[in-house]
């Protein structure tokens, strides 16, 4: 196994044994093969640098590479945005560890050698983010490779497999050329994704959000610090912002919009269509420290004459119901007034033909939209609620406050 720090700076000799130049960069072509070192950049002082292809290298050792062609057969250097440069784009840069779910900085890159009929190919196996890599970077050039290897053996190693490495590239065009996709990120829990995004710079955050699908982006933004979310959404095109916000729950969407500057939120609201827009506007009109400012407009309510069996059947058929909204079902009477709530556990244990009127729990707990935060917290605590109904002046339910929103608010106060 070799390390990038050992290969970089090494001397290159051609087939005749004459010195060509020093290895100053290793290029990977992700479009061709995602982990093979495709080109070696050889610096020649005041002369133009040369490029050696992977099939022109006969052997690689720390500090030296040997080519199997003559110097005149090497091509001249030209930049290519589709190439990933190990020294410039990897070393000392931050990458996402999709396995460990965090952002780390690359100290060194581990390479494996593969011999194929007369040539040696280097392939990237791991990225070193620990002390061994740091020691190598520090001592490279100051001590012989053998000494460095002996020192590094005493240090604990921290590496990440190349397949778990997700590069962060703010430029969208280059992202395409380098074939950077974030499908591993899309499988992560939104909270982990939000944690990762909090570690990055604004441009990098923007880049990640731009490459996620709307659903994942919405979930990640919902978990992110609200200031960061506003910063990200402000920089997006209003159409894309609206697409993402449509995927969010209305109360989260309202929080995001409230954090934007007036001009931007106006643009985004105009892009939002129909029902979502109305719901979000409803929520925006409430003071953020009142029950109305904490509630969401997505909740399930059913007439009290329905039976348990009918409710289960009906919920199953509705594809648009988010299962997270089902921990409490609100019950309304004949005048569409709020008449109680049922925890989903009770529903689970009930018989098929029991009506909701028989299942609902006492007492009737609800809150007006202009009630203060403190009152909401007190009710949750007193009645051990998971969801609290918000009703208008005539007693009709207009929203629900979920316990995780209460927890988020309480943490902000700590």
């Amino acid at each position, binding site marked *: 196994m070799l390390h990038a720090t050992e290969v970089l700076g090494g001397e290159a000799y051609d087939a005749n044994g004459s010195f060509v130049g020093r290895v100053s960069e290793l290029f990977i072509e992700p479009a061709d093969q995602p982990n093979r070192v495709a080109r070696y950049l050889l610096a020649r002082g005041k002369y133009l640098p040369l490029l050696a292809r992977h099939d022109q290298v006969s052997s690689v050792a720390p500090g030296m590479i040997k080519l199997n062609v003559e110097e005149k057969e090497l091509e001249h250097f030209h930049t290519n945005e589709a190439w990933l440069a190990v020294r410039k784009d990897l070393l000392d840069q931050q990458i996402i560890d999709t396995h460990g779910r965090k952002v780390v900085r690359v100290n060194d890159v581990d390479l494996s050698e593969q011999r194929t009929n007369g040539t040696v190919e280097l392939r990237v196996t791991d990225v070193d983010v620990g002390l061994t890599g*740091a020691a190598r970077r*520090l001592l490279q050039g100051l001590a012989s490779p053998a000494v460095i290897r002996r020192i590094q053996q005493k240090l604990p190693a921290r590496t990440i497999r190349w397949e778990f490495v997700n590069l962060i590239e703010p430029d969208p065009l280059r992202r395409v050329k380098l074939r950077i996709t974030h499908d591993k990120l899309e499988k992560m829990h939104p909270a982990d994704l939000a944690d990762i995004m909090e570690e990055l*710079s604004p441009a990098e955050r923007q880049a990640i959000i731009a490459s996620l699908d709307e659903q994942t982006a919405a979930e990640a933004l919902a978990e992110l610090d609200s200031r960061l979310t506003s910063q990200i959404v402000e920089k997006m095109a209003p159409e894309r912002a609206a697409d993402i916000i449509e995927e969010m729950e209305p109360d989260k969407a309202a929080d995001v919009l*409230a954090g934007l500057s007036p001009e931007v939120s106006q643009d985004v609201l105009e892009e939002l269509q129909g029902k979502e827009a109305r*719901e979000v506007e409803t929520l925006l009109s409430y003071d953020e420290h009142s029950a109305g400012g904490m509630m969401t407009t997505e909740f399930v309510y059913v007439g009290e004459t329905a039976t348990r069996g009918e409710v289960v059947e009906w919920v199953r058929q509705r594809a648009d119901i988010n299962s997270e909204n089902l921990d409490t079902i609100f019950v309304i009477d004949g005048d569409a007034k709020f008449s109680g709530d049922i925890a989903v556990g009770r529903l689970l244990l009930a018989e098929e033909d029991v009506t909701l009127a028989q299942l609902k729990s006492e007492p009737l707990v609800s809150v007006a939209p202009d009630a203060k935060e403190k009152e909401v917290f007190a009710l949750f605590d007193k009645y051990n609620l998971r969801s609290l109904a918000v009703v208008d002046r005539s007693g009709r339910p207009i929203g629900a406050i979920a316990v995780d929103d209460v927890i988020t608010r309480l943490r902000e106060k700590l």
Partner: protein
Amino acid sequence: MNWTINTKTEELQRRAVQVRRRSKHLWRRLALLLAVLGPGLITSNVDNDAGGISTYSLAGAQFGYALLWSLIPMTIALYVTEEMCARMAVVTGKGLSDLIREEFGFRPTFFVMVAGFLVDLGNVVAEFAGVASAVEIFGISRYIAVPIAGLVVWVLVLRGTYRQVEKIFLALCSFYLAYAFSAILAKPDWLDAARHTVIPSVQFNSGYLLMVTALVGTTIAPWQFFYMQASFVEKRIGARQYPQARADVIAGSVTCMVIVFFIIVCTAATLYTSGHRNIADAAEAARALVPLAGRWASLLFAFGLLNASLFAASILPLSTAHVICEGLGFEAGIDRKFKEAPIFYWLYTILIVVGGGLILIPRAPLFRILVLSQVANGVWLPVVLIFMILLINRRDLMGEHVNSPTFNVIAWVTSVAMIALTLVLIYFGLFHPSAATGGL
């Protein structure tokens, strides 16, 4: 059974518009400013730490009002350098050592970190020395006060969140007003002082020039850049709030220099005019004030010294731990728990324990440590300044927020001047250490 909610769209749209209009009110703007204020004020005021106060007291005692003219150029220099850090923080969202690592590589970063650790260790020793000498004026033994101070400082950072700690630091800033009162009690000739602030009166002897050098060296220190940039990043100040961040930096630079003005005026009006020109440090200055300006002036001065030392003793280890962790890629920040960022917290602890411990060892070579720390600072400062100016001019990092040509000229002139002055200080520090007493 239906899903939709009846809303009166027009009425709600009207109310939504009302909500948005409210945010244009003045009190909202003030709230926005107050939310951002902090890093600039804290960084600049911690500048007036034990070493700083000693230097300024000496400046007043030895030269009277003659050095006041340097305050305005120093304010400008302070603002120019700190503003670059604030700008980098809000635009890139990264700390200074992160940027140095990403753009210049591992070895330069390592060098910066090692130098930073040595310099800051020396500074922390100076802070605890300040605590020790200040409490001795109040009649408390240093062997009681220094361990307690160390403990208080350590617990404060370990137990607090960034916001809590920042609030406490900001409150501590207000105690610097003690110097203003001290100066007023000294009954100085305000007109004379004002005249000297505006009209330069340069003397061409080595003592004077050395004092100017020491003043500059103590006012502008690299740890400030790292700390300020990291604070803005930790507060998540975005580019949209840049005007408020800049206001914070201006407020900090100005208040810092105002306090320096009062310190110099205080000692100038009392010690210089009465002939007590050879004092060794701030504590001696405070003591010498008693017969000249009364006990209260002296106590206020000593209290100011204690406040500044404690304050700096909390911030410097924090900044150093940040620099090193950021550069090496370890987790850092007081919003993290101990388990999440062990190296960060260990570095912080070591700095406090060693810094405080050295003060308690009798006959420790304090003077030598301080001089060496200054020399290291003289090596560190030019490197960091040059890195900063190179970084801030990178269009791929800063986009449209790179330095304007005018700003670049000012920045380069300021940096070259400071580098030259600190090189002078190194020379004296290495070869004529006794002459470098002033630059504690």
